[in-house]
């Protein structure tokens, strides 16, 4: 009964911890590895134009729905222009306006995007399009084309594919020839396809985008035909007729209009540029949280001031160290002075590093013990004696620091972080054990404490583990669950197997041990 309650509690804690962890990892994109970097792309559109004599209004289509990518950050750069952004039926546009401008002008739009597999197409099902109006000869051609393509196809996908084949052979196709020539641009082809698809009552649109790959010079926009088959969007390359979402394709804008439109200006030229860079994953996650308006970051350890964060990056590892102690004590059976003394010593080792830490610890405890044995002869009362030991420990630490400074040994200085009260108590306990139970037991426990402290230090210092716990402190719930379970471990300890080794063995015929 009691055990069942424990198991339920432990599994609840573990599930809670793990699900928050998974949510943060999968959905919010927190990195599980320290120094993980996310590849991000800087995309830039520069609109150059010659302003006319009157007011100028520049309209630039900017990315809104970008399947496969998430917009981290964007900025608008211009000199003296008023800026506004609007949502339109086809997406978003930025509008720069100025009463008058002199000489060639450039306005910039910059965005930072990164690949986000979690981001599926968020489009909803579009309404059926209105049948576009064609003049009489065109309408006949369109009807004929639709009839023929329909005959050669089975569904929306094959219809589109077949249609694109007809359009591609513009020069020789009797119907298409009416609208296009062989030299027509892919955009024109895609636009024609949408009109014909609309006439066939199939929702379709053209999206324009750039391929995100390292390239020098300007990036070209590429059209992509999007067709809705009633369930989902299908994507076609109007030139190669390949179906499917192209790799690394960032949708910039949708619709049949141009990317930019300058009202009151001439010689409009839009230059797109793509540049790859890397950002710390944590930063990406943070910026993303901002752009999503999520408060996960505000309620994480990252919302704390940097110095406090540094403290917590150590504190969150203490339960891990304590768990190591649980395992070493209850599963292995190592004896230590004081339950959590090794954790504190392990924390001190962080500054001194392991080898020096052990040396310094051993030196201080050994010297402290000597002095403690002498104090014993003075017959001091308990609390004053403890205070004397503490004082001596502090003096010893100061002495070692000064000495190591003289000898140019850096690690000796870090001794100042040793938990002196704990060391004083350790010396006291050790000397009592020494006197009451003999030196071997005292040394055994002393060495046991040191071994446990060293192991704890090693585990607490594992970089990926400390990163993991700091970024996902909810994993401490899992640690708690594990600790709860270990609390009901009633099996043998490893060292008990050795302790009870005489079980079932006959007496040594040679007689008694020494």
């Amino acid at each position, binding site marked *: 009964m009691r055990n069942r309650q424990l198991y339920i509690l432990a599994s609840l804690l573990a599930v809670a911890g793990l699900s928050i962890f998974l949510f943060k990892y999968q959905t919010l994109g927190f990195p599980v590895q320290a120094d993980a970097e996310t590849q991000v792309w800087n995309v830039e559109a520069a609109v150059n134009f010659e302003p006319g004599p009157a007011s100028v209004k520049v309209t630039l289509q900017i990315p809104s729905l970008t399947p496969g990518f998430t917009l981290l950050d964007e900025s608008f750069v211009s000199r003296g222009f008023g800026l506004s952004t609007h949502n339109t039926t086809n997406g978003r546009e930025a509008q720069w306006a100025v009463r008058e401008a002199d000489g060639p002008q450039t306005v910039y739009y910059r965005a930072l995007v990164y690949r986000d597999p979690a981001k599926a197409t968020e489009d909803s099902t579009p309404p059926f399009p209105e049948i576009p109006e064609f003049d009489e000869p065109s309408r006949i051609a369109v009807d004929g084309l639709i009839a023929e393509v329909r005959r050669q196809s089975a569904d929306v996908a094959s219809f589109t594919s077949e249609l694109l084949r007809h359009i591609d052979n513009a020069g020789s196709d009797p119907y298409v020839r009416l609208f296009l020539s062989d030299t027509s641009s892919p955009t024109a082809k895609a636009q024609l396809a949408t009109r014909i698809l609309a006439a066939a009552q199939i929702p379709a649109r053209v999206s324009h985008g750039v391929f995100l790959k390292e390239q020098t010079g300007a990036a070209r926009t590429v059209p992509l035909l999007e067709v809705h088959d009633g369930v989902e969007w299908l994507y076609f390359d109007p030139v190669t007729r390949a179906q499917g979402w192209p790799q690394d394709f960032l949708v910039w804008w949708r619709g049949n209009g141009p990317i930019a439109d300058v009202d009151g200006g001439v010689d409009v030229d839009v230059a797109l540029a793509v540049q790859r860079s890397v950002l710390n994953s944590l930063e990406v996650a943070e910026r993303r949280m901002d752009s999503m308006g999520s408060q996960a970051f505000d309620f994480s350890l990252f919302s704390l001031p940097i110095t406090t964060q540094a403290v917590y990056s150590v504190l969150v590892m203490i339960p891990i160290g304590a768990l190591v102690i649980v395992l070493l004590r209850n599963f292995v059976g190592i004896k230590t002075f004081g339950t959590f003394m090794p954790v504190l010593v392990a924390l001190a080792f962080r500054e001194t590093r392991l080898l020096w830490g052990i040396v310094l610890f051993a030196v201080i405890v050994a010297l402290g013990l000597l002095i403690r044995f002498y104090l014993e002869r003075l017959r001091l*009362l308990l609390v004053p004696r403890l205070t004397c030991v503490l004082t001596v420990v502090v003096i010893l630490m100061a002495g070692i620091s000064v000495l190591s400074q003289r000898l140019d040994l850096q690690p000796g200085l870090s001794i100042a972080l040793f938990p002196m009260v704990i060391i004083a108590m350790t010396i006291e306990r050790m000397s009592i054990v020494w006197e009451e139970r003999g030196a071997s037991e005292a040394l055994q426990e002393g060495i046991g404490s040191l071994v446990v402290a060293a192991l704890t230090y090693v585990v607490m210092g594992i970089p990926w583990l400390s990163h993991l716990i700091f970024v996902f402190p909810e994993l401490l719930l899992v640690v708690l669950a594990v600790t709860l379970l270990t609390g009901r*471990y*009633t099996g043998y300890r490893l060292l008990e197997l050795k302790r009870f080794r*005489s*079980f*079932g*063995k006959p007496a040594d015929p040679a007689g*008694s041990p020494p």
Partner: protein
Amino acid sequence: MSVLARYRSLTESGVLGLNKRNGDYIMRFNPRRLYPLVDDKLKTKQLAIKAGIAVPALYGVIETQHDIRRLEEMVAGHREFVLKPAHGSSGDGIIVIAGRSGSRYRTINGTLLDTEFINHHLSNAISGQFSLGGIQDTVIVEAMVHFSPHFESLSFEGVPDVRVIVFRGIPVMSMVRLPTRLSHGKANLHQGAVGAGVDIATGTTLGGVMSGQVIDTHPDTGVVIAGLTIPDWDTMLDISARCYELTGMGYIGVDIVLDRDLGPLVLELNARPGLAIQIANQQGLLRRLEICEEAADFAAAPAERIVFAKKHFAHPVGPVLEPGDVAGQIG
């Protein structure tokens, strides 16, 4: 032997491990609120006196630094006495005075202690040097036990004592602890005393164990350990069983000494009795505890519980692991 095989063999022998002792027995049957009754030897002593269980006579109690001066007056008329911290564990801080030499006290092993040393020791003890967690303590001044010559051949100095594990009123396992030169006359196994299992049914000693190793003879006297019958065994069983009613604790170790003139006396109770008794008996405790839980009537009178214990815990309990092992020869 591999770790797993060893683990399994311990399970088969019904050996009780520390984790199981703590989690399944001490936590279940020893309620926290009753601990003071056992941890404070003074309280135990007073309870025992009230219940008519024999204990070494109480000469006085030193509770404050001021009381230290009254020691002389407490022990007036007694050449021998024992100073014992009420919260001491495993015999720490005990001084046994067997006589005087001028103004100084002579301990049982002949060391002379001056008053200053004794006073310092008492003051340390009162400050809690020997108590668990360093809490304020009191020191009991009590009569020294004149140990029965019965054990003389099996001990080096010091007083041998009998430890009985009592599970909810039923004596389940027992051993006698024999001081050695190594243990400096203390009856403490981890200080090097010999532990010898005692058959619950008959009160005869089984083989011995010292520092975790099975031995046949006492290391200092060379006398064969097995086969010695402990006198007044039934009385010992009786007072151990009654210690359950005394404290209400379900899992205790009762430490009994055999006085030359007074017979068995309860020295102290232990709420966390050690597991070495299993090595001394070459028998697992767990099996016996399980037998109790399956078949025993815990509400029965002490006499009936002893009948149960004698019936079920005659040595050996359960299979003997290897033919010809120490336990087998005696049983």
